[in-house]
């Protein structure tokens, strides 16, 4: 069989099928668009949640090792370098007493109290610290145990501080968000698949006489299948384009600065759109394959 005329015929029949059965095609287009819209929105929300959690995680994974006031700057610097070379440590930075006071003023609103203490001769009560930014939140406890009993400055224990309570909570949220997102996408995908299958099965039922004649005159099963597969693929891709358009429109309308709504960047938006198009094409063709199977059984 010559592939070019065969392809031309399959494309023509697929397009004819869509036009002839535009009612069913429109219904499946609408439902698949809605489900892909749900899938795209789910990916965006999971991304935004993940971003918030990552932020929380990065904050929670900071371990502060407080310096006694008599520790020399050289000793502190030495400790900073030593800790920075630890495998689980991403970065280590020294925060002097003034920086600690400025930080407390800005984040905790303690500027007034610190000013009163300093002007009354009490001085800055906040200690200098080495702030360790860890690669993995799970390593905080281990590093804390290692540092708090270290002999690098002088025999421990050294006073440390980290968000002990936040860590398990953040880990829990991350797991829940990933699991929830995966389940949501899987459920939405399954719904889209079922809808396309039903739609193609209905289309195949409407065209049962055409299929019967094709088989009687000697068309191969694949020749019968291809127009339906292409039809599902076309509907899936159009649905994905519509869903992407709506998501991008909403993203732009509610976005600010260089990013879309929920802090989704342009790059991610393009990736989500491409993913939806690919997903729509795969869902459409696979749904069609399942939908047409019964019509070819005899």
């Amino acid at each position, binding site marked *: 069989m010559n592939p070019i005329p065969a392809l031309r015929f399959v494309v023509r029949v697929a397009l004819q099928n869509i036009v002839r059965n535009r009612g069913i095609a429109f219904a499946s287009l609408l439902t698949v668009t809605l489900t892909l819209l749900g899938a795209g929105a789910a990916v965006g929300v999971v991304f935004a949640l993940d971003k918030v959690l990552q932020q929380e995680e990065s904050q929670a994974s900071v371990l502060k090792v407080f310096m006694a006031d008599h520790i020399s700057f050289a000793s502190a610097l030495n400790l900073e370098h030593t800790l920075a070379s630890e495998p689980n440590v991403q970065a280590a930075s020294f925060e002097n007493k003034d920086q600690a006071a400025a930080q407390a003023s800005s984040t905790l609103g303690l500027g007034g109290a610190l000013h009163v203490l300093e002007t009354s001769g009490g001085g800055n009560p906040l200690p200098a610290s080495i702030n360790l930014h860890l690669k993995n939140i799970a390593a905080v406890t281990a590093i804390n145990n290692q540092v708090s009993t270290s002999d690098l400055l002088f025999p421990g224990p050294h006073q440390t501080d980290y968000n002990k309570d936040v860590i398990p909570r953040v880990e829990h949220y991350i797991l829940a968000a990933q699991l929830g997102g995966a389940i949501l996408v899987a459920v939405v995908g399954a719904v889209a698949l079922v809808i396309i299958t039903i739609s193609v099965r209905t289309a195949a039922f409407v065209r049962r006489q055409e299929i019967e004649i094709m088989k009687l*005159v000697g068309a191969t099963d694949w020749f019968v299948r291809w127009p339906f597969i292409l039809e599902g693929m076309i509907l899936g891709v159009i649905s994905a384009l519509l869903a992407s358009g709506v998501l991008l429109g909403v993203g732009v309308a509610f976005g600010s600065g260089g990013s879309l709504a929920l802090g989704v960047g342009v790059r991610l938006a393009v990736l989500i759109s491409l993913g939806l198009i690919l997903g729509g094409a795969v869902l459409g063709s696979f749904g069609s394959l399942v939908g047409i199977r019964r019509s070819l059984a005899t």
Partner: protein
Amino acid sequence: MSISTSPAPPRPQVAETTRPARHEPPIIVFQNVSKTYPNGATAIRDVSFTIPPRDFVFVVGASGAGKSTIIRLLIREETATKGHVLVEGQDLARLRRRHLPRLRRKMGIVFQDFKLLPTLTVAQNVAFAIQVTDPGRSHLKEKVGEALYIVGLEDKLNTFPTELSGGEQQRVAIARALVHRPRIFLADEPTGNLDPDAGWGIVQLLLQINHRGATVVMATHNREVVDLCRRRVLAMEGGGLIRDEQEGQYLKDGEANL
């Protein structure tokens, strides 16, 4: 698709008689064939016959006698529960599903209900058989025109089936079955929905196709047609083959109406 009418070749004469090639291996063989459905109903039981190339055979009998089952077994829409059905030496029970299209392209098949696509014109309905089996085939228009010329509908190319009479619709179905130039032509009650004149016209056409070299098997309960043609008759009753007669009639002499 729009097809212009090409200069018509002279119309062939309808054959009065056709000599089956009995010296050649049979083109169709039924060996002790039975068909029982999953619900236990037996459609045919222990049926045996052979059909030589270029034979013209009527399969007659009352409704439910098993005529259509024989046609369905021949196109392998059904498979035999017992026995063997052979077409050109090929045991259909052993035929792989992927080779089924090849078998059906050797056959022309028409039914009582015509099975035309109402949204396509006459020419498009005939061309459909070529397009879905060999889209790259050249001279599509000529082949469609030739098939429609044989059935006498060369002036109805762009007409839709709903605008045709029953007899004309059956002629379109025959033209569609002819475009592959089949060696075997199967007709399941092709005159069942037609008035006597139109029905006789269809039988004349099938005789002409037989004269051109095709083996024709026609399932019918049209007594008049069978009796006028005097061709081979396979008479079915209750799923069994009760009579196989050359130049036979619908009923055996002295037999009561079926």
